[in-house]
């Protein structure tokens, strides 16, 4: 009975502290009034999540960066949230190891992915970006289970950079994208990257690299 009384006393104390505290510990900050429209973040369906991701890459700047971060699943906060990891194509890893004589960072987690976004949008700072998704004809069947809240999409991607009459493809390839619905919205928690076979691991046009190769290149040290 002593333990029970002590437990009740502790519970009552915690409740009193919670009710009596002057500051709500879960009160979020008050946002400023907006000065611009920014990227429309919508994660209601897997398709809209991918559209938001596409807009985030195409829209350079703080709004795009925030939208990109919000796409990625971060397991450190919300219970039940998976952790984001990107997996590179094995032959790309081999080729990158050969050219840099370094082992790639493993695993590729959300921390590295956040840094990668800055690297990607800074590749051609004066160019306008357009990131597009298209169906993967070699794996046309997506898996989507609204009951379990899981989805696996296979997509072809291409990132084009334009400046005046110059138009170049700076990222191209395929991705298997794993998404999960947690707390009423969808999150991207795994990106399995594949190269575009006609371009191969070492493309003739050195710009036409896969996102996996771009990710690895972003870790090459330099100011």
């Amino acid at each position: 009975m002593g333990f029970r009384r002590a437990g009740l006393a502790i519970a009552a104390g915690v409740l009193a502290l919670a009710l009596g505290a002057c500051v709500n510990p879960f009160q979020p900050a008050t946002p400023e009034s907006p000065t611009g429209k920014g990227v429309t973040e919508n994660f209601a369906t897997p398709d809209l999540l991918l559209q938001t991701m596409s807009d985030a890459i195409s829209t350079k700047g703080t709004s795009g960066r925030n939208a990109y971060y919000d796409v990625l699943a971060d397991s450190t906060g919300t219970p039940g949230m998976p952790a984001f990891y990107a997996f590179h194509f094995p032959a790309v890893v081999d080729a990158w190891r050969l050219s840099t004589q370094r082992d790639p960072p493993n695993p590729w987690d959300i921390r590295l992915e956040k840094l990668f976004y800055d690297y990607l949008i800074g590749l051609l700072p004066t160019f306008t970006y357009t990131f597009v998704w298209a169906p993967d004809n070699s794996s046309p069947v997506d898996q989507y289970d609204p009951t379990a809240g899981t989805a696996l999409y296979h997509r072809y991607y291409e990132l084009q950079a334009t400046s005046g009459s110059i138009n170049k493809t700076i990222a191209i390839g395929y991705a298997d994208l794993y998404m999960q619905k947690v707390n009423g919205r969808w999150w991207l928690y795994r990106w399995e990257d594949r190269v575009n076979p006609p371009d191969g691991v070492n493309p003739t046009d050195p710009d036409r690299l896969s996102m996996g190769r771009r990710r690895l290149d972003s870790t090459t040290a330099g100011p």
Partner: protein
Amino acid sequence: MTRNRRLSLLLLPISLVLLTQALPGRAQQGTSARFAFADTTLLRDTLDLHFGGLFPLADSLQVAPDTLRALMIRYHLIIPRLTLGRMVSLADSLHVPVDSVGPVMDRERFNPLNNRGKKQKTDFQYTSGYDTQRTTSTWTNGSQYRLSRGAGYLTNITSIELQNITSNNIVSQRQNREATTEAGLSFNRNVSVGGRSYQLRFYSVDPGSPTTQDETKNEYSFTGRAQRKSQLLSLDSNIRTGWLDDNSVAAIKRGLSGSADGRIRLQGGNVFSHDLSGSVSGNISRTRQPFHTLESNTQDLSTSLRGNLAVLPNAPLGLNVNYSLRHTKVETPVQTIRYDTVLTTPARIDTINGVLINRIANVGNSADATLRMRKDSDHSLQLAGSVNSSDSPTGTHWDGGGKATLRYLVSGAAIDANYGDTRSTSIYLRQRGGGGYQEHDLSRSADGQLVRSIGTRFVTKLLGSIGLDQYRYVAQADSATPPSPRDAYRQQYRGEVSYIASDKITTGLVLQVSLNRTINIQAATTGSNSDTRSYRGEWRWNFRMFKSLTVTQNNSIQADYLAYPFAPDRNTLALSYNTVTSLAAQLPGNFLIDVQHNVSQLPRGSYVLQPDGRNYLQLSDNSQNYALNVGARYQPAPGLGIHFEPHYMSSDRSGTVNGVQTKQRTDKHLDFSGGVDLNWKVGAKGQLTGRVSRSYSDQRTINYQNGVGVLTPRSETDFWNGNLQLSWTL
């Protein structure tokens, strides 16, 4: 429409369900109210395995139930007649966590000190496996050989893995061959010495890569083992030192290599125990790049130290402390450089060649402590704190936090409450146009749960949770542009009622409300702030119609209101109506069949301002999905199974153009997989296990343009897949 009126729409079908008083059912139930919702029916019906007490035991060990179940199935192959209780007893006697029982037992099998004194012992095991999938095929061969004759011993472990990866008719190859051989003498049960040889051959080729990725590695070393065991202290250590010759595409290394590891356990009766394990490994080598001749000195080093202190583990008040220190350093020559010095008197040029060494260091340290106050499994309070830090070439990370966990059973109600608070700081170094800032993260969460039985037939569960994540940034470099500060807020309430009519029938209702807010703080980014309010109702029932036929149905309806506080014209609503019906049957003649039918409708729309000044929902698109999945398995003889798994899915999607709903796309998809499962004895000491299947997939899509359907070409795949493994023991 006000929020309450929207909610009332969701409550309508649930009310109807209540009025109909549908037939309830029952699954395996735990004994305590805390585990009233735990269900092991699936395990019982599909695997014919019994995991009595799985949930309370997993809860007690603080591991996920499916993890404990997977561990038991995995170790079941190593340790015959394994039960949950026996696995926990083994973990206790070995003084290891339950997930380390298998690896520790495997390691001890090859410890020569454990086999000394046996006059003659010879073990040999050979395993060969072939695994083929759509784009990858892997052939593995492995052998383990142990021989002991009095004080002498000889062990050999060999593994060969050959892998082909096909992509668009281009084949990449990866081949890995490893062999470890050790021979020596055990002087007594405490000391042994010997010699060890390790060979690695790695070969990788990809048509897109300019060269292969070969690696050849040889190590020859002396080994020593020592151990001492008493009631108070147990100690064991391993030492290895020798010659390293590593030839890879990154570097050629030749030099001395060595490693040492040890474990100490100090047991002070029931008062305390302290486990400490550490290891050091590294090499001192002459290293050069494969295409250069200039060599340089490099040192690789890896150290780790882990410890666990448990004070009064069985008392009502106890303390548990874990700590870990880890450091690795790898040095690789990356570039040969040339220094020219021009001298005028006399005129000549002195040339000095040099090499830049690339040093990659990683550091990770962590510590946590838990103060536990416990009367029994239903009355406990835990206070825990943890600190972690890591340092890598991309930056540093630090986090620290605390957590309180209360479990209390009062008047038949099981109460669980948790509170956690974690703060972290990450420094992203300025690299290639990114980083150059600090990220400060605060993560705070609280949740509570109450489970109570009402009478003998009703069980209720109430759950509430709240959480806040805050991200703040500080630029460290003038050119850095850190992300804008932002918050993520979430709260959730959930009520659940389960009605148990008999041991055949159970039904349950769930109502869940949640709010998730994405809050960017700076003016430039707040335009994309959003609030998602979700309302979910669920009704499920389970009916065991006959001894071998169980029907389960889950009906759910969910509404996700997505609102943009600063851009209300972009507000949307996504609805989801879903019904999943499952039929599990065990027919005479070892025939099992599972049928699942899934129907879902997903309308979605946005709110449009009408002339009367109010916003009304206007549907923008609607999806209707149907899926039928069948899993059938027939076992005509022991060790032989035949499986048959067709899946059919149909999806219709329509959109709204100028206020008129029109069909946009129709997908029909069929998957079929069928084959055999084998578990055969080959001779007296061999075993052939595995699965071979043929998989077929077909899809047709119709895209509608102006109401006219355009049939896309058929998409078809057809391939063999499976794996076979042959093992043979002497």
